[in-house]
């Protein structure tokens, strides 16, 4: 190897390492579509939530202070081209979190949300990974593109899975919540259905609605109110909803209000899909108190990213109050509502309410059900 060769080597090596090989390219999706009829479509075994005990984010010698970051995105038809773009964009997220030192030991999980009323594959959930295996999982997500015309998708099933079938050391060992981002454009169903209904509700599949029993395999006594499952979820995860442009309901007031009702101000409108990884990275960085919005935007500019303005707009509501003061005082900046922070502190000692020891999740009874059955839903 002679002089002058190194730059080609560096460039070629970077390209070679980034190149997706046959096995982990987005070809699970293509392969399934090409080889099977729609009614035979299934999730990749690595992503099938059925019968899964827990997806775990664990500390290790190499990653002593793991931080769980989960990103679930809607893959139904109303999302248009968005899921494919997300599948291409999200692999950057890990680098972004690490590159600027926002998080020392992130562990990322990716998943996909469909519609349990009419989709073959209403939920896909990967594993928390701290290396390139997360890319493989992202590549194995089936972009079913289904969904019905009823402006609701089964986000609540995803929330149920994350609340009851994940176990994360950042929370369990250190009382530090993980991060969960849900990217979608529609509403939750009002309840987490314990089991399916035989009567077809809507949609072209005529398969009828499926519930927790059919999709995840748990036997619940009763349905759970969607607001309750989000309340439960938010004990363990700082949960955000991202409504991207390019989807059917971008900017839709009803959708935004619905999610604000569930997540408070943790609702982000994103007008540039290419900025999704930057938006998530900065949100986590601000949440971790390792970066303020201004510094984060400066980082983006320095990296030559054009996403800055979109991210700035998207995060404008989150960045108040100015997080840097809190970061400077050693406290963790909390862009979410204060009540949740109070919970967190309290639960640090007592390991937080009914989420104490590791109850076998499949048998955990529903204790949080409130009298909301008659309540008007959005």
């Amino acid at each position, binding site marked *: *190897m002679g*002089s*002058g060769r*190194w*730059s080609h*080597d*560096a*460039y*070629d*090596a*970077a*390209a*070679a*390492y*980034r190149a997706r*090989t*046959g*096995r982990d390219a987005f070809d699970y999706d293509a392969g399934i579509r090409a080889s099977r009829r729609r009614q035979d479509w299934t999730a990749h075994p690595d992503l099938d939530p059925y019968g899964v005990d827990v997806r775990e984010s664990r500390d290790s*010698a*190499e990653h002593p202070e793991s931080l769980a970051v989960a990103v679930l995105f809607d893959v139904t038809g109303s999302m248009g081209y968005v899921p494919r773009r997300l599948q291409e964009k999200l*692999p950057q997220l*890990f*680098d972004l979190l*690490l*590159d*600027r*030192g926002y998080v020392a030991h992130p562990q990322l999980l990716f998943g996909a949300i469909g519609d349990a009323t009419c989709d073959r594959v209403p939920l896909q959930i990967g594993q928390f990974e701290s*290396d*390139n295996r997360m*890319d493989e999982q992202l590549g194995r997500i089936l972009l079913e593109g289904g969904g019905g015309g009823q402006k609701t998708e089964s986000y609540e099933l995803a929330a149920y899975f994350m609340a009851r079938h994940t176990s994360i050391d950042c929370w369990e060992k250190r009382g530090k919540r993980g991060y969960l981002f849900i990217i979608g454009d529609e509403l939750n169903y009002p309840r987490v259905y314990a089991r399916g209904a035989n009567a077809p509700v809507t949609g072209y599949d005529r398969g009828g609605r499926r519930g927790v029993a059919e999709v995840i395999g748990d036997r619940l006594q009763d349905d759970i109110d969607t607001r309750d499952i989000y309340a439960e979820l938010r004990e363990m995860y700082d949960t955000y909803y991202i409504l991207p442009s390019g989807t059917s309901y971008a900017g839709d007031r009803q959708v935004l209000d619905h999610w604000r009702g569930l997540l408070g101000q943790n609702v982000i409108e994103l007008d540039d899909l290419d900025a999704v990884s930057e938006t998530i990275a900065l949100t986590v960085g601000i949440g971790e108190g390792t970066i303020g919005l201004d510094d984060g935007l400066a980082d983006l500019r320095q990296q030559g990213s054009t996403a800055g303005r979109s991210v700035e707009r998207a995060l404008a509501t989150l960045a108040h109050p100015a997080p840097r003061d809190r970061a400077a005082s050693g406290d963790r900046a909390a862009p979410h509502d204060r009540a949740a922070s109070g919970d967190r502190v309290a639960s640090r000692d007592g390991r937080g309410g009914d989420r104490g020891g590791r109850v076998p999740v499949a048998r955990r009874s529903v204790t949080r059900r409130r009298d909301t059955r008659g309540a008007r839903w959005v």
Partner: protein
Amino acid sequence: MDRTLAEARHVIVADLGFGDAGKGTIVDWLTGRVAATARPAARTAAVLRFNGGAQAAHTVVRADGRSHTFAQFGAGTFAGVPTLLTRHALVDPLALAREAAALAALGVPDPLDLISVDRGALITTPLHAAVNRAREAARGGAAHGSCGIGIGETVAYALAHPDLALRAGDTESPARLRRRLLALHDWATTTIHALTATPPQGEWLAGRDIAGPHAGSRGGERLAGRQRAGLPAAAGGAEALPDVEELIRAYRAFARRIRLTGDGEVARLAAAGRLVFEGAQGVLLDEWRGFDPHTTWSTTTFANALELLAEAGVDAGDVCRLGVTRTYATRHGAGPFPSEDPSLAPLLAEPHNGTGRWQGAFRVGHLDLVLLRYAVAVCGGADALAVTHLDTAATAGDRLKVATAWRAGGTRITRLRPGPFTDLTHQRRLTDLALAATPELVAPARSWPALLTDELGVPVAVTSWGPRSGDKHPPTMDFSSTREDRGRVPVP
């Protein structure tokens, strides 16, 4: 530790000469052969590299004619066996990507999936290579015969700057990666400037630069030893130094794609199946046991592999230490070679080892039992031998002799005494002795395997009659016998 190849669970393959004995083909045979057997427990879980780096060149020829010279990938790759670069190995991510592309072109599916790297493994960068070439150019006529890719510089830098050395694990942290690459860049700039701008005189390296604060330490000793050998002459031309940002991009991509491992990986692999440790270079080039200064910056004996196995809790009784030798001696590059006989070269076909651009000519000579005995001794013994190039020996016929002893200064020498460990002064005396020695050459009276078994006291477990896996086979006769060769023929 007294296990034959068939009984032992794990195998360490080391070259008992100066390199090029055929470790690659033996590893290919071991992995391919076991992959074909029925017992899953005997399957090779991984090939582990325990020394050296991208300068290794282990040529494997497959039955279907495919051929590849393995550098960082283990020679079990064609058999689908994954490779672990342990913390004793050096990794060059840029060259690794090139090699993966070459393997993919040969039909290996997703070669990068077959590589994992210990976080502790040192990274060889183009910065090290640039310093390497500048230093070699400055040495002029006294060039060491380096490979020119910066292996020695990488080890030297790590010894001198243990806290700044770039290791595979650093690619996971962008901040640390940047910091260390910038430090490397500064070091390379300063060093190359010193080498090219001011024509060096005499022992200009002594006490300067990397050796300075560490003289007396293990690193300093090694550095001093190396530097004594090279008297720089004319200054070479400067080359453009790599851009740090470009390297960061490449190394970050490497970190994202390649599985990086930590403690416990060897134990995990050992539990999964057989481990084959593929040595690089040869025992006679060992940094502490070789003929100083014509050595490599690497421990080429079984020591590193045994250390890794011990850490993994593997019973030493489960290990076979397999020494590999040709039926004649070879040497690539400068250094003593008592039994060297250039007139043999036309008889000994050498399709894969030409004259190296940086290393110099490929040299051949007669089998040297004095050196082999020494190699086995400094290895702490071997459990079995693999004898390669029996086909070449058959072709060369009785022109090939055996050096049973040396004559030097009126003394007959049959054994070289291993000195105290890390005593480079002793190694220099051995070098001087070897340079002055004349070999006593005799015609081999027995088959090569029988001769080697008798002379070294180590049984022959594999004989190789050609580059392909099918050319190897375990012997069926009792090699401790002194009877004449039974007229063995190559198995096609």
